[in-house]
């Protein structure tokens, strides 16, 4: 059930998109945030062999089965989270980066994130004025059960506030911003710990950027709410 091979013919020079038939799991071990259960992770390996050549490429990733939902509570105005259908009380910390000179070693990520988990935190917020954090950061958040709230790079530097007044319309090159955003999403999207993308630090990006991000990050229609077939 958890091994599938597909034959494909790819034209010369072509770049194609392919979706595997969905793989079925009965009661998979779910990934839970720190304090709610185990951080079960499955190793996904994708490999391609080419006739007359042999192994051509291989990719692997640790994957956690989990569903993260969040919504704004109408009574309090606060954002509430559920993981695998269970409400979770967020105990979060603000994170910019582990070092201002970007000495971002695996060892340092491992130590810092383990420390946050040991503090009983279950979420880290990557502030919009800092980094889109690196895969090593996300790996240790996956392993230690830290949910991640990842912001894009919009702050008071780009909203017309401040003294002197900042550029009111975000970075100058909106297309470049979106190129970087889309690439960052592709880099990080498979991590179990990735809980929420946010447009920027305590504010909304310029209209065109915000609309594009919302469009790109919208839920695929197939993953909507229960449509009568028992889907969660």
């Amino acid at each position, binding site marked *: 059930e*958890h091994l599938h091979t597909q034959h494909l013919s790819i034209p010369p020079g072509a770049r194609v998109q392919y979706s595997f038939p969905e793989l079925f799991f009965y009661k998979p071990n779910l990934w839970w945030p720190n304090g709610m259960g185990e951080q079960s992770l499955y190793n996904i390996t994708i490999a391609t062999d080419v006739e007359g050549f042999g192994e051509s490429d291989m990719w692997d990733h640790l994957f956690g089965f989990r569903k993260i939902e969040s919504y704004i509570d109408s009574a309090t105005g606060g954002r509430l989270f559920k993981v695998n259908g269970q409400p979770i009380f967020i105990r979060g910390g603000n994170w910019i980066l582990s070092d201002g000179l970007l000495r971002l070693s695996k060892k340092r990520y491992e130590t810092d994130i383990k420390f946050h988990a040991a503090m009983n935190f279950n979420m880290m917020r990557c502030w919009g004025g800092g980094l889109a954090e690196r895969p090593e950061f996300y790996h240790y958040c996956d392993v230690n059960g830290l949910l991640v709230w990842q912001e894009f790079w919009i702050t008071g530097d780009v909203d017309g506030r401040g003294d002197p007044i900042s550029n009111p319309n975000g970075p100058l090159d909106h297309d470049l911003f979106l190129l970087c955003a889309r690439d960052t999403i592709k880099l990080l999207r498979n991590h179990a710990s990735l809980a929420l993308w946010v447009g920027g630090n305590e504010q909304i990006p310029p209209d065109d950027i915000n609309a594009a991000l919302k469009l790109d990050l919208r839920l695929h229609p197939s993953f909507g709410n229960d449509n009568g077939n028992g889907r969660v």
Partner: protein
Amino acid sequence: MAEIGKIVLNSGWLAARSTDIELTGEQLTTTHPPSGPSSPWMNAVVPGTVLGTLVENKVVPDPFYGLENKEIVDIADSGREHYTFWFFTKFECKLAVNQHVDLNFRAINYSAEVYLNGHKRDLGRGMFRRHSIDVTDILSPEGQNLLAVIVYPPDHPGRIPPKGGQGGDHEIGKDVAAQYVEGWDWMTPIRDRNTGIWDEVSLSITGPVKIIDPHLVSSFFDGYKRAYLHTTLELENRSGWVAECSLKIQVTTEVENSICLV
């Protein structure tokens, strides 16, 4: 011959201030490569920043001790060229027939030109994007390759007002880059604005067909009893013929130390 997979280039790098180097990128990667860490070249921290390299070589003090940040010249006073640096390394890579190799930069701040064995490639602007260059055709047939990268600081490094403040003069916000680097309420200004090859550099060796950016998603039914894994990816055929492939996905879980259940 090279094995299919990734080779990380995180050692053996040298760096030098661009104004101290009169050679071109073509010369550095053909006839006049640096011989080692002798002035103006120094051992470089890659991944890292220009400032990180200068601190490592004790050219400037560590800005996070005492008030030592004040001893380091800010890019607004020095000019962008002061923090424009060459990075150089060598690597071995000899491909078999029908193998391909990409040179990957997972992030550079803020823009760069790459020279490999005398061939130039431009990398675009933007701090938060990956760059991947197919260098199959410009690898050295002997296997020893010379790589030089000139890295430019952000286009708008800005100036720190006398009283500091949130984001300095906000100029850095004009670029797609980290904005704390002009200083914030929790951070001193970063003098080079984090210029550098600040994330992983690697080679990825593949056969004719390359796997690109798989996307994994799960869906759940019946109160999480049933789950499905949805996988989408891109495949690129770099050969000149129709590639007949078998594409395989396998999911395993480690039951005990190194014992896996498929």
